[in-house]
Each structure stands twice: as structure tokens, then as C-alpha cells.
């Protein structure tokens, strides 16, 4: 195992994060704060309690997940797409690092960035609402797993993309709608039965529900099922990455 190689990629990516601190950290925190102001304070004051807590407190897990999923995806996809775009992948390909080590470096860094952003949003939410965490260990576990699985997804997108347009397409047209419709701002029990059924086809519903359970101690979907969904999604991404590794698809001729 080339540990220095993994560390080099990880460290290099984290230094990009530090260099672009405004874009990386401040902007997701500000936009999430705006969600708290608009949904939590302005609209939330007119909504009665959801699942026994104030609407502001109810949306905290969803907002964290919203940011974490989109940030993990976009960070990882950009991290591997940018070297492809500027032509520096020659160095990755000619170095004594395995594809697995490359994935660990990039995905690890993207997941870490998303985790930092998630933690910061969690801290920020305390300024707006009273947040209680029923199952702290489960909360951290869900957060970490989600960061890694969506960073894996982002890595796949970055390998697949052949233009900046394609790079934006999947997060914008698939990930963001799934996250918004995944119960970030509502309980799926609020939906008519038909749409509840449709929602169950959305994998993000399981992730947000599980994460919300770790905060509130109650959820739309049994927590075991949520955990299974995160594990399944992670396995699927690992499977695709394994296939890319075997074939060199869009990475090595």
C-alpha cells in the first residue's frame, strides 16, 4: 500500500479546500442559514409541530443532509474531473499508486470536506433552533457513511464526465431533485398515499429518514431499513468503481 501516495492526494485536495475557503465553507453555511431564516423562522412559525418538534428543529437533519450530499458529490467529482480537464492525470497514471489508493485519496478528501461542512451547519443550526440529538453515535455514523457514499458517487461522475456541462448535469438534474424530494423539508407522511409510495423509490428518503431518526428518535422509515439503504448505495458505488478499475473506463486507455 502506497500510504505516502494516498496522503499526498488527500493533503493536496485539502489544501485546495483551504485555499478556496470562501467557496468551500462559507457559501454552504450562508445558504443553509438562509434556509433556516426562510423555512425555519418565516414559514416555520406558521406551521404546527412536525413529529413532535418545531418545524425549525425538524428540518435541521434534512438541511445537513442536503448540504452534505451535494457537497460530497460536487467536491469528489470536481477533484477527479479537474486533473482530467487540465491534463495532470498523466501523473496519477504513471505513479506507483493503485486505482484503489487514488479513490481513497480523492474520496477521503471529498468526504472530509463534506463532513466539516455538515459539522459546521450542525453548529450553526444552534443559533436558530433548539437542536437535540437522541442518538449521537448513530448520527455521526449516518453522517460519515453518507459523506463517503456520495463522495464515491461524485468520483464516478467525475470519471464519467467529458465536459463541465456533464459534470454539473448529474448533481443538478438527479441528485438535487432527489434530495429536495427526499424529505429534507417535510415528513413523507404529510404526502398523499400515492406520493408516499413513489417517495419510497427515492433512495435519499431512507438516508434522510435515518439521519432524522438519530436526531428525533422517530422516523418515517424503520432505522434498520435506512441503514440497509445507505450500505446498499455504498456497495453499489464501490461496485461501479471496481468495474472502472478493471476496465480503465474513461481513465486509462
Amino acid at each position, binding site marked *: 500500500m502506497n500510504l505516502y501516495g494516498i496522503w499526498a492526494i488527500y493533503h493536496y485536495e485539502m489544501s485546495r479546500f483551504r485555499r478556496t475557503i470562501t467557496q468551500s465553507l462559507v457559501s454552504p453555511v450562508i445558504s443553509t442559514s438562509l434556509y433556516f431564516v426562510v423555512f425555519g423562522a418565516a414559514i416555520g412559525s406558521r406551521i404546527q409541530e412536525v413529529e413532535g418538534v418545531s418545524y425549525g428543529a425538524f428540518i435541521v437533519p434534512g438541511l445537513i443532509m442536503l448540504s452534505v450530499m451535494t457537497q460530497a458529490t460536487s467536491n469528489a467529482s470536481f477533484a477527479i474531473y479537474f486533473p482530467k480537464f*487540465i491534463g495532470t492525470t*498523466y501523473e496519477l497514471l504513471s505513479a*506507483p499508486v493503485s486505482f484503489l489508493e487514488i479513490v481513497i485519496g480523492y474520496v477521503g478528501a471529498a468526504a472530509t470536506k463534506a463532513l466539516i461542512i455538515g459539522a459546521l451547519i450542525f453548529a450553526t443550526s444552534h443559533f436558530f433552533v433548539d437542536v437535540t440529538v437522541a442518538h449521537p453515535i448513530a448520527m455521526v455514523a449516518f453522517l460519515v457513511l453518507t459523506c463517503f457514499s456520495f463522495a464515491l458517487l461524485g468520483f464516478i461522475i467525475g470519471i464519467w464526465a467529458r465536459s463541465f456541462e456533464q459534470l454539473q448535469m448529474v448533481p443538478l438534474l438527479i441528485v438535487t431533485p432527489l434530495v429536495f424530494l427526499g424529505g429534507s423539508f417535510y415528513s413523507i407522511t404529510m404526502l398523499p398515499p400515492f406520493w408516499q409510495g413513489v417517495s419510497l423509490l427515492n433512495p435519499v428518503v431512507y438516508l434522510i429518514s435515518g439521519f432524522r431518526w438519530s436526531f428525533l428518535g422517530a422516523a418515517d422509515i424503520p432505522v434498520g431499513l435506512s441503514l440497509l439503504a445507505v450500505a446498499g448505495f455504498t456497495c453499489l458505488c464501490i461496485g461501479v468503481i471496481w468495474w472502472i478499475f478493471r476496465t480503465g473506463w474513461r481513465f486509462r486507455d
Partner: protein
Amino acid sequence: MSAILQVENLRKTYDGGFEALKGVSLDIQDGEILALLGPNGAGKTTLISNICGITRPSAGKVTVGGHDVQKDYRAARQMIGLVPQEIALEPFEAVLNTVRFSRGLFGKKPDEAYLEQVMRKLSLWDKKDTQVRALSGGMKRRVLIAKALSHEPRVLFLDEPTAGVDVELRKDMWNVVSALKADGVTIILTTHYIEEAEAIADRVGIINRGEMKMVEDKASLMQRMGQKQLEVLLTAPLQDVPNALAEYNLALSPDGSSLIYTYDTRSDRTGITRLLTDISAAGLVLNDVKTRESSLEEIFVGLVSEDRT
């Protein structure tokens, strides 16, 4: 000297069916500078890409220091440094950080003193904290070399290091290459500047249409290049070279109308004056004289154009 890099019957066929390498074999000796000459699209970069791991060979075997580049890729790649043809660098990173990254990527533990030494040799140390995008084209090329040298490779590939750079910088680059050779680094450089191969290489390889046309010592090539031919056209054709001119090893043209004398331009005396006097003394009448010389360029163009026909 022993071979540090061995290429055996290397083939590369792309998905579309294009055969970029058609069974290339090549031995590169430890500590030498080999210049790979070839026109655009000859397969120079493909050959390097296959050796360095950027592309996968379709068939054949490559070993570096005895390590197979596919089966034992870690050990093989650790010995290789690659300076690509295109300037490909992360624009927003500081020079030193990007060089540190390369060292780490190649599995070497940090060694700031070594990196400083490499960067000083390349006149880059003053720019260590500068963002790459603020550097000139020539300095960016130096950064690429520093990155390639950061993990102390034994073999360095320079893919057209002087393509599109001005004369001064080209000379500068040649000095860098000579200094690296003095440090014991084996260097393979691709170029289509013949004078570059003449200036710095120990051996010259000519590649065209995915085939190695020849690999030869530059010294013996220069010997061939240093030879010149004098053709003496006569008014009346001859059956044989007269005995009086036997000492000159003259050749007779197929139609007998001219005598061909081969001489070395680098020797003190070419013997031309004496030959011409002896030709007159033998009673032959000169109609015209022509000289012809072979240059590396001529050999190169000859080999390449043979393929086109």
C-alpha cells in the same frame, strides 16, 4: 553498461483498430541519453505512455531495472520520471507544493533538502511560493522537470521538452539534460529537432508509423554524416576505374560516365586536389564535378519517406 529499460515487441492497438505501435523492441542502457526522432504521429508519445503506465500495451513486455511495468508496476514506476509534452499543471497551487505532491504520490517520504536541491538546480527555488499560473512557459516546463525528478528516478522521459520554445531556452534545457546525465540519470527524449539529437544524445532512434526504423550510436551516425561524396563527370564513359587511380577506392557509376570518391570532411586532408591532378594525369577529361553529403536529416527523411512509398 547494462540495459536499464527493455522493450520487447511492444504493440498498441486502439479501440478503433488503429495500430499505433507495431512490435517495437528497444534496449536503453544505464546512464545514456537516447533521442527518439520521428515525425508527428510516429508513435513516440504512445511508446512513452505504454512504458510509463498511461496506456496499457496490447502485447509485448517492458521491464525497467528488471521490473515488469505491468506485473510489478510499483517498483517499475518508482524508477521512472516523466515530463509530458503538454504543460499540464494545477494552476492555482504553489510551485513547492506541487513538487511535494509528486514526491508523495511516488511513495517517497518527505525530503525537503532534496527537493530544495532539485529546485535550485533548475533555478526554481526563488519561485517556490509562487502560484504555477504566474510562471512563464519556460519556468512551467522546469516545474514539470522538478516534479518528474522529485522522487529520485533512475530513468527520465522527456517528451518533446523543447517543442515550441525559443532558441535560448532550448540551449538552457540542453544544459539541464547534460547536468542530469552527469548525475547518472538515464534520459530518453523525444524530439523532431534533429539538431537537438545531434547536440545532446548518445544514441539516436528513429521511429515512424509505429516501427523502430533504426537505433544507432550518435558517433557512428556522425561518422556516416561526416562522409561526403565527390562525383566527377567525365566526357567519355569508362569500362573500369583506371589502375592509376586504384589507391582512391573510386566507384564507377552504372553507366560509366562518372567516378565517385568518398572522403571524410573531418580529416586534415581530403585528397581532392591530388585526385583531380591524378585524373588529369590519367588522361581523363572532366565535364563537371558535384558533391553530396549525408546528414542525419537526410537519413531521417530517407527512412521516413521510404515508408510512404
